[in-house]
């Protein structure tokens, strides 16, 4: 500990000077952060903005010294009077959770899957304060109520997989705030939530910040997410802080990198001069007729079951060459619909007709999955991933299949020289390209995209979208796009179907969303408006 009373004013909470983080891979040193400076007072909040890989998360973890053991940190991180980088383990442990708390990116992954929520929050409380069992229960229930969970007793007993994404993130926030920290670091707290839940969580963070006089560091690739929360933003690029100013000032800079982060749609438009023209009227390729599906679930150690109605009499059709967008909150049944169309699930009743024939499962329908990270076998090389559908169909001889795989790599904008790299070495955007190439290899007529861009930053989303539109036009593909995000919607979708609780509640053109009176649609539009900075116009 090095007390530094001369430089710290009473209001100052966190001071970072010359913070550098290096990772060592074998003998190679890779710099993740270089000479980052920042200052934060009590109750102040700072947004950290940057593309993926710009060092945002390294910054968050370096502040709490949570980096993996192969990372080396230098510089100064001073929290109140404590020099965190040189603090003893005990001091550091006392500050983690009680002085500075961290909310990690994925609430699904940040909560222990085999422990009930109440115990996970209670353990944090007990690590910092001596409380008896009763006090612990009351404090945990209070923390859960504070984050807007109305049935704290039920949530305390529940396991993470029994909660929705929004409830999990709320529980994670309760866990972070139960010891009343002075500073909250939120590392992309919204990225895995649907748009409507994102808006709710953001509103919650804003209320809590005001009530508890929390200082906050809010990390995101989307400036819209924190425009209402933070006074200033720090812009990161390649591990360096390239700018630190208010959002209004940032909006006026000419720097293309900052403009790209603030106005990704503008960047998208630069590369794609005209919005994609959709063919007018084709024959319907896919018809879904009165499809229903329900799932049974059991409670622990009891024989009672309860049914979850995932789909209820869904009717829709998609014309050849057109794109239909299916939007809705998480849990609205859109992924189940996608899986039924792709043939992974069979509906309980109703039928799915593809090109006039009853369809069950065929290579003519290909699906691109929500989570690219897990949808590719990490042991396969790029070429193996792409040629797998060809290998299964035993089309042509192996050499020809390999050649086709390389052509496809080129088509989706991947360097064919990378064919022998294992798929886990590719970045998120590149993996999504690989998944697209694999889907194209099967020669599909219909492409089902289940939240294909979740987890990608906005600039990458724009790039991927452009690629998708090119590919769609070239192969005359029909697409079904599943998502909760309205960004870019009007550029690729001809029709939009809004789903809520397993039903289709609205069927309209993208332009009609804004004037809709259906509550589920209004919720999505409003949430989308609140989250995107001016310029990121969701629905034109």
């Amino acid at each position: 500990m090095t007390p530094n009373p001369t430089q710290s004013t009473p209001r100052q909470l966190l001071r970072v000077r010359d913070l550098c983080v290096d990772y060592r891979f074998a003998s190679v040193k890779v710099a993740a952060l270089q000479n980052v400076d920042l200052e934060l007072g009590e109750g102040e909040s700072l947004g950290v903005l940057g593309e993926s890989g710009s060092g945002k998360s390294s910054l968050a973890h370096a502040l709490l010294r949570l980096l993996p053991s192969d990372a080396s940190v230098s510089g100064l991180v001073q929290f109140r009077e404590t020099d965190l980088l040189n603090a003893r383990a005990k001091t550091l442990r006392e500050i983690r959770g009680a002085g500075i708390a961290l909310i990690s990116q994925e609430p699904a992954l940040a909560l222990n899957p085999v422990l009930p929520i109440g115990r996970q929050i209670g353990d944090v409380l007990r690590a910092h304060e001596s409380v008896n069992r009763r006090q612990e229960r009351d404090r945990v229930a209070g923390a859960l109520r504070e984050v807007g969970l109305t049935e704290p007793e039920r949530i305390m007993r529940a396991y993470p997989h029994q909660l929705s994404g929004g409830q999990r993130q709320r529980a994670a926030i309760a866990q972070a705030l139960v010891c009343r920290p002075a500073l909250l670091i939120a590392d992309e707290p919204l990225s895995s939530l649907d748009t409507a839940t994102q808006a709710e969580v953001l509103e919650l963070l804003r209320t809590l910040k005001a009530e508890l006089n929390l200082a906050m560091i809010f990390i995101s690739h989307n400036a819209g997410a924190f425009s209402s929360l933070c006074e200033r933003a720090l812009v990161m690029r390649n591990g360096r802080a390239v700018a630190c100013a208010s959002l209004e000032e940032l909006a006026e800079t000419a720097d293309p990198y900052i403009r790209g982060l603030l106005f990704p749609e503008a960047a998208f438009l630069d590369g794609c001069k005209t919005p994609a023209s959709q063919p007018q009227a084709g024959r319907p390729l896919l018809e879904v007729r009165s499809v229903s599906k329900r799932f049974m679930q059991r409670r622990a150690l009891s024989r009672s079951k309860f049914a979850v109605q995932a789909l209820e009499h869904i009717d829709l059709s998609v014309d050849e060459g057109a794109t239909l967008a299916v939007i809705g909150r998480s849990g609205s049944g859109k992924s189940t619909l996608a899986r039924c169309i792709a043939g992974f699930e069979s509906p309980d009743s109703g039928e799915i007709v593809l090109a006039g024939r009853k369809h069950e499962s065929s290579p003519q329908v290909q699906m691109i999955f929500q989570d690219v990270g897990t949808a590719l076998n990490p042991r396969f090389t790029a070429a193996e991933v792409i040629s797998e559908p060809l290998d299964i169909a035993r089309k042509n001889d192996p050499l020809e299949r390999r050649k086709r795989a390389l052509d496809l790599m080129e088509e989706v904008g991947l360097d064919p020289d990378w064919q022998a790299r294992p798929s886990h070495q590719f970045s998120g955007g590149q993996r999504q390209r690989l998944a697209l190439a694999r889907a194209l290899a099967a020669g599909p007529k219909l492409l089902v995209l289940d939240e294909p861009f979740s987890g990608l930053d906005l600039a990458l989303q724009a790039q991927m979208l452009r690629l998708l539109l090119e590919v769609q036009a070239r192969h005359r593909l029909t697409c079904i796009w599943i998502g909760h995000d309205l960004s870019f919607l009007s550029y690729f979708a001809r029709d939009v179907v809004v789903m809520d609780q397993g039903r289709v509640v609205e069927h309209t053109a993208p332009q009609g969303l804004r004037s809709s009176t259906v509550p589920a649609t209004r919720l999505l539009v409003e949430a989308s408006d609140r989250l995107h900075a001016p310029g990121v116009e969701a629905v034109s």
Partner: protein
Amino acid sequence: MIRYFGRRLFHAVLVLFGVSLLMFLVQQAAPGDFLSEMRLNPQISPQALHTLRAQYGLDQPLPLRYAHWLSFVARGEFGYSFAYDMPASKLLWPRARNTLLLTVPALLISWLIAVPLGVLAAAQRGTWLGRLFSGGTSFLLAVPDVLLALLALMIALRTGLFPVGGMRSADPSHGRLADLAWHMVLPVGTLVLGSLPVILRHVRAAVSETLSSCYVRAAEGHGLRQLPLLFRHALPAAANPLISLFGISIAFLLSVSLLVETVMSWPGMGPLLLESILARDLFVVLGATMLSTLFPLAGNLIADVLLYGFDPRIRMEP
């Protein structure tokens, strides 16, 4: 839940049935039977042999003999031992009890040592202590179990602290239970040393995987102390593969036990199985094989029950 275990139980019965059928066929394929050696004895006439054969039912066709044996099993017996001239079950049950006397304490002791040690070793990964640990377990893993058993015997012989083999002294000086425990020390110790490195390595691997997971790092970020972090958060999350291993380790211990028993002349199933195979004592071999199939099956069933209770996600059903 009842259906879940009903299905598991049904599978176990199927496996037992399959094993018995296989053993019957294999025995049949091996040349000769219990009476073959008597043929070489000039004092026994071919007529007498023929009568004996009919008496044991060895002249009947295979399916009939199998059906006959099944009807025995249905009555809770295992047939008749030719060599000992008594019902096989009377021979098998005490031997099985003696084997359990070794394997159950060995199982408990190895897991009680392996879990805390493995968790701590996972936390020490990358330090010199961790490397020492890796070296130690690799060494133990490489030493054959027979050698361990022989080493134990040598220690007993040199120091005179422990009995050299056997299960009971002729004249126990401290009471029968203490005498039994004193005889158990070396075989149980050998079994523990034999199974410990495998379990330890699995515990360490499973826990170090969860230690690098997001939720354990998040818990660390909330300032949890080291021990609660390891034992309350990381261990339950890593328990899943370990519980399955618990079931498998019963089978593993049993196979090592058969060997150790033979070397240390412990009157368990190991020596009996060896003798009866050599003597072609058909029904005893069958019974011993069935019992040694039963143990791992029971282990797996226990593991399934534990998993069901332990992991909230397994209780979900499609």
